[in-house]
Structure formats: structure tokens, C-alpha cells
């Protein structure tokens, strides 16, 4: 992956403020940056700072109150199957089996495919995500990591160009989280997507992303954008590289700085390593 592709997404002086009884509460303020074709952009900042709101605007759940979020030059008007979204709470449909969950998007008018093709796509992602043995199970029988793999499979099945992830591994234990990170890198190596990842783990951001947007305490503004000096494919060994450590302490300093600025404003938060 290179970061030299065409700009696909542009945050153009984006501001979003909530109308509260106490007046306008800005959550995102004058944010501008681009996401290019093939980019893996991680957005990192203190919890509750408004980074999820940024992703929600690109996903089409929320509209900016000022500025524009452009997708291939056109303002985002709503959610769509070109942008797959993964949530921290998985969002797998509990009333459908694993296979039916993956097939769900393919049965909608927007991306309907013939039954045979649907079955092939399901089979492919069941295998890729290691869920084949659970094809006929309901999600209640799956662990957290498996549910998130299912959510990833379901998002991939409709062939989105973008993958938007809101702290997707935040609810997982350290081991599962690390496995999921590797699985994500593997599947991205096979089927490239342009990715926006919201996280508050510095290590996760460096390990996965090609660029990292560090945002300030609320209201979220861009504090700094750093390029990650590692190419793909990557493996765990890059954690040991000196550049990794330098980048980590640099970003951590910035984030801790913002975290301190935010304390007293919102509830405290713990940073995961």
C-alpha cells in the first residue's frame, strides 16, 4: 500500500456542534484532512473527544454543521454499502445464523447477487475468518473475537471500498485483540480497502495504520498528522523496531497532553497499550 493514491475522502473545515440547553456544544471543530486511495488512517485522541463523530460523518450517520465531508468530491448524504462500518459492540444480527449474517448485505436490493454467488462469497469469508465450523450457529454461541470476525466478514461481503472502524477491538482481551489486528492486516493484504480506524490505543494505531491523525481534547481538532514509516505487509516484529518506539513515545506524549487538557471536562479514561 502506498499513501500516494488519489484523495478519496476530504474533511473540509468540518465542524459539528450539538444544540444543547446550555448553547451550542462543539464536538468537532474545523477539521481538515484527506484520506487517499489505499490509505489506512488511524484517528487517535482522548476518549470522548469527538473522533467517533468524525467517523459517523463519513459513514453518513451525522451531518456536519459547518464545512463538508467529501467522498470522491461529493458531500456524504447518508450511509451506503460503499462504506463498510465496524462497531465496537459488533452489531452482528442475533436473530440470524453466522452464514445468514454474512449473506445479509448480499440479499438487499443494493447489492443483490444470485444465490449461487452468494453462497460462494459466504463460503469464502467463512473460511477466511475461521468461522466455517460455526456457519449454522447463532451469534449467541460466539466469543467476542468471533463476533467481530463475523462483523468484518459481513462488511467485506458487500465489497465496500472503505472500511470504517470505530474502536473495533476495544471490547476484546489483549490476546484476541492482537489476533484480530493480524487478521485485519492479512485480509487487507488480500483485499485492499481504504480504511479509517478510530482507536485510543497508540500501539494499535502504529501497528496498523499508514497515517495517524492525532486529535485534541474536545472539541476535536487536528493536533498533528504523522506518517507511519513502515510498509506492508507487516508483522509483530515491527513492535521491536526503534522507529516504532520513537513514534510511540511521540504520539503518546501528544495524546497524554490532550488527555490532561480534557481531565476535569469528562470522565477519566485508561489508555490501552
Amino acid at each position, binding site marked *: 500500500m502506498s499513501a500516494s493514491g488519489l484523495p478519496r475522502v476530504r474533511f473540509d473545515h468540518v465542524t459539528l456542534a450539538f444544540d444543547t440547553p446550555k448553547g451550542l456544544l462543539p464536538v468537532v471543530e474545523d477539521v481538515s484532512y484527506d484520506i487517499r486511495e489505499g490509505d489506512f488512517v488511524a484517528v487517535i485522541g482522548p476518549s470522548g473527544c469527538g473522533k467517533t463523530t468524525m467517523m459517523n460523518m463519513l459513514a453518513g450517520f451525522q451531518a456536519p454543521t459547518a464545512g463538508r465531508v467529501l467522498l470522491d468530491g461529493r458531500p456524504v448524504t*447518508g450511509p451506503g454499502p460503499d462504506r463498510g462500518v465496524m462497531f465496537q459492540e459488533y452489531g452482528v*444480527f442475533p436473530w440470524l445464523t453466522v452464514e445468514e449474517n454474512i449473506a445479509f448485505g448480499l*440479499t438487499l436490493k443494493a447489492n443483490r447477487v444470485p444465490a449461487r454467488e452468494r453462497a460462494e462469497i459466504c463460503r469464502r469469508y467463512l473460511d477466511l475468518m475461521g468461522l466455517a465450523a460455526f456457519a449454522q450457529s447463532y451469534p449467541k454461541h460466539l466469543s467476542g473475537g468471533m463476533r467481530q470476525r463475523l462483523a468484518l466478514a459481513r462488511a467485506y461481503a458487500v465489497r465496500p471500498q472503505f472500511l470504517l472502524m470505530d474502536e473495533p477491538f476495544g471490547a476484546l482481551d489483549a490476546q484476541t485483540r492482537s489476533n484480530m489486528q493480524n487478521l485485519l492486516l492479512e485480509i487487507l493484504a488480500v483485499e485492499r480497502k481504504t480504511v479509517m480506524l478510530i482507536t485510543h490505543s497508540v500501539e494499535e494505531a502504529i501497528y496498523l495504520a499508514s497515517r495517524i491523525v492525532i486529535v485534541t481534547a474536545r472539541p476535536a481538532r487536528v493536533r498533528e498528522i504523522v506518517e507511519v514509516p513502515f510498509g506492508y505487509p507487516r508483522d509483530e516484529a515491527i513492535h521491536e523496531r526503534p522507529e516504532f518506539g520513537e513514534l510511540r513515545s511521540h504520539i503518546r506524549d501528544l495524546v497524554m497532553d490532550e488527555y490532561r487538557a480534557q481531565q476535569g471536562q469528562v470522565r477519566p479514561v485508561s489508555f490501552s497499550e
Partner: protein
Amino acid sequence: MKDGLRRSLLVLSPWLALVAVWYAVRLSGLVNPALVPAPHAVAARFADLLWNQGLLTDVAVSTRRVFVGVAVGIALAVPVGFLIGWFRAARQFADPVVNFFRALPPIALIPLVIVYFGVDEPAKIVILIYASFFSGVIVMMEGVAQTNPLFVRVAHTLGATPTEVFGRVIVPLTVPHILTALRVALGVSWATLVASELVAAQRGLGSMIQNASTYFLLDVIYVGIICIGLVALLMDLALRRLSARFLAWQERAGS
């Protein structure tokens, strides 16, 4: 085989205990025996009513009333409860009204029902519809209001149209609430049945109990009560079977 035996023993034991307590109360001398018919006397009366006095007709008449009342009541409660639950604005003004009517005991409405609907079959059904509707509407309303918006969001990101979101996400999430509403309405309706059959009913378990009380036929009253309980229990079991079949996906304690 041994397991089956143990299971039926487990299911039967509370009933056997109940009968034992019943005998104990009667034999203890604490209560005037004239006021507590013995279980075997009630059983004999049961057989007599069954063979000679058309007990099954009473059971059928009552069951039909409950069935129609619940069916109509829930058919109305599902869309109404859904709308109130789904739209927060609707909930704000409908909630107190619904609770007001639900709090009114159906029995208190009987004089009015007689005035407006007379004393025939419609009057009894109306009371049961009323009881099922308001108990069902509450369940639907609360259940739908708690629908996780995440699922709707996910469906939108996968490209679902509003119609598809409704049919493929909201409907499946509503089924459990419909089944719960049915169960609650069935319970309330059986409880209300006796009251509804106070309205000059010729047949039915409620009127059987009512007539028996006029002549102080305690054993008949007992038979009537047991029949109501039994039929209600059977209906509830059937509904639970149905739930287990349709809601196999639900996470439940102990599953």
C-alpha cells in the same frame, strides 16, 4: 427411560404436594369441612360435570372467548404499541393515557359495557379485547422502545432501504415482544374471563362458577377454577413452545 421417569416425577411433585396440603387443611380440623370439599369429592364432581352436564361446552365457550379477545386485542396492540414505542414523541403523550386505561380494572367497566354493548356475546368479548389490548400494548411499547439502534445503523451501512430495514431488522426484533405480549394478554384475559361472564352468560367457566356460588356448590367452584387454570396453563405451554421455536437465537439465562 429412568430420566423420563425422574422428569415426570419432578413435574408432578408440586401438584401432588398441593393435593396433600389440600387434604391436610381439610383433615386438620382448622377449617369447617363443609367449606373445603375434599379433592376426591371435587374429582367426582369433575367427572359428573364432564359426562352429564357438558363441562366441555363451558370450557370450549370460555376458551373461544379468550381466544377471540386475545387475538383481536393483540392484533390491535401490536401496531399501536409499535408506533408508540418507535416514535419518542408519540410515547410522551400516549404513555400516561395507556397507563390510565391499563390501570382501570376491566370489572369496573362492566356496567358501561352493558350500557353500550348489551348483555350478549359482544359485551364479553369487548371486555377481553380491552384487557388484552392494554396489557399487550404496554409490552410492545416498552419492548420496541428498547430496540438497539445499532442494528438499524448496521443495516443502513450494508445498503438497506427503509423498507428493508423494517422488514429485515425491525420485524425480527419485534417478534419476541409480540410473543411476550400474547403471553401476558392470555394471562390477563383468563383472569378477566370470570368478570366478563358475569354479564348474563349462559355458558362458560366463569358463569359456571358464578351460578355455583349462588347455590353454594363449592365443589363446582373448585372444578371451574381448576379448569381455568389448566386451560390457561396449556395455552401458555403452547405459546412457550412456539417461542422456543421462533426465538432459538435469543440469549437466555440457563441456555
